[in-house]
């Protein structure tokens, strides 16, 4: 079996987010880019499966839609252990346009499991995975918190309201992954970093697709009013404020 992990790159989650050009664009100065956390967990799980010979995984590939500036992020994925990478050379504009680009990579390849993170931590869209599945008319499973391969069958656990559902999925399918699939993201070792330099990143021409939406501007969240402090010896005062001022209890 072959696995494709779709990766997005996002500002490091501790980055202070600022905007420029009248709040129409993200200010990228000083930003540390990382693999989107859920994509990184998907990749980690894919590599764990490959390490277990009984799962029968031949290759783990990664795909990214974006300009050359994203190559360090792709190299990082290769350093962690992905075998090869695809980069569609175009500016990502919205989820629809990105999913359309990824679809052509899946169509041209022979992938059995296609993994996408549930959302990216920048635009918080949670759409690319589902759109990719629909472009390809493939089954998809969302909210995956566990992925195993036993006797050639793909066993999935997905989160539903108040519980879990255990499924077996036919292949190929698109898996949309959330937290829990892998405990900690894998970290690149020096050997991996050296090897990543020689691994291929295949450039793919973009297909002509118009985005369906446009981000016009950003704004910071409204500042909350200053915190009112209550004497730790009189917590009853807090109850009073919640009842009479905030009126939430």
């Amino acid at each position: 079996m072959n696995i494709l992990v779709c990766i997005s790159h996002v500002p490091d989650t501790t980055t202070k987010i600022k905007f420029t050009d009248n709040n129409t664009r993200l200010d990228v100065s000083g930003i540390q880019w990382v693999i989107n956390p859920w994509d990184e967990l998907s990749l980690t799980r894919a590599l764990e499966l490959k390490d277990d010979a009984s799962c029968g995984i031949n290759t783990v590939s990664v795909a990214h839609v974006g300009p050359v500036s994203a190559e360090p992020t792709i190299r990082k994925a290769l350093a962690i252990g992905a075998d090869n990478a695809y980069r569609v050379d175009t500016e990502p504009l919205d989820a629809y346009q990105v999913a359309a680009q990824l679809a052509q990579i899946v169509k041209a390849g022979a992938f059995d499991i296609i993994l996408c993170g549930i959302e990216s931590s920048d635009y918080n869209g949670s759409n690319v995975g589902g759109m990719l599945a629909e472009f390809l008319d493939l089954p998809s499973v969302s909210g995956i918190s566990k992925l195993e391969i036993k006797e050639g069958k793909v066993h999935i656990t997905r989160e539903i309201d108040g519980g879990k559902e255990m499924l077996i999925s036919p292949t190929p399918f698109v898996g949309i992954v959330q937290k829990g699939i892998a405990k900690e993201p894998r970290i690149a070792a020096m050997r991996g970093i050296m090897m990543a330099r020689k691994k291929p990143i295949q450039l793919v021409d973009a297909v002509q697709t118009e985005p369906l939406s446009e981000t016009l501007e950003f704004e910071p969240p409204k500042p909350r009013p200053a915190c009112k402090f209550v004497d730790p010896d009189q917590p009853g005062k807090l109850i009073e404020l919640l009842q009479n001022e905030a009126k939430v209890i």
Partner: protein
Amino acid sequence: MSVLVYTENWNGKFKKLSFELASYASELAEMAGIEPVAVSIGKVEQDELMKLAGYGIKKIISVEGENLDKFDTRTYSRLISDQAKNESATIIVLADNNRGKALAPRISVRLQAAVASGVTGLPEQTEPFRIKKRAFSGNAFATLELKTVVKILTLTQNSFDLREKSVEASIEKQTAENYDTGPGPEIQDVQIQTGKLLLADAEIVVSGGRGMKSADNWGPILELAQLLNGATACSRPVSDEGWRPHEEHTGQTGKVIAPNLYIAIGISGATQHLAGISGSKYIVAINNDKDAPIFDAAQYGIVGDAAKVLPKLVEALKVAGNS
């Protein structure tokens, strides 16, 4: 033309989220000058369906069918897309929950419809269609323009107030056939905790962090949550340590919630944690470090040791509850 809202049911019953969706759709329809229509999938009794009319929904389509008891993303997205076409929907509203997040992108591709996910309010304008959504995990809002004829919105739970507005409604019963989408994922087993208030449904959430020091100290948090009819949550280190189950992890990579009241105890308030709770209407922080960033996000705070403050708080709440 219409606003079509998919009102999910749980074993044939609606919950507050369903009525939030109905309220949102009917207000949006009023704004755009079109009709609000609800689609319900699976068996729901007449009385239950009519509840949607209490929130301004004038037409309720109830679709039943053999294959519809289990949720399959392909089947459901086709069905909703077809209903949207039949009703000439220009806006489709779904919940921003597991199911809505699975369906919205599929419907988007089927209908060439732009999506804004995780919206918390009505659009600023409908021509052209501009709406705000959460971005950068709570560190910003983005204004999106949806450029297609049909638009899809997923609404964040507990972000839109119920609007009771009784209207005359018609119910249209349909039987779905021809929705066999071929082999798909097969459900082997389901584990559901019944009778427990879900974190996403809770209006009050009591949450503990590393400052609680050990799983053994969770007693007062559980008690506080019970007294307030709330749910319990935790920060990432707590679930990583195994003090609390992963389902309770609230934050950027865990659950993103928007309760009316979030009580953070022994949580310092790292950016990643705040990303999961920034939609809360009120945040209360109890922490022994007066410089902890959680106090910048909180409206009310107590600087003190949780082990000492909590028992007093529980006591005070019992007194207030009895008076």
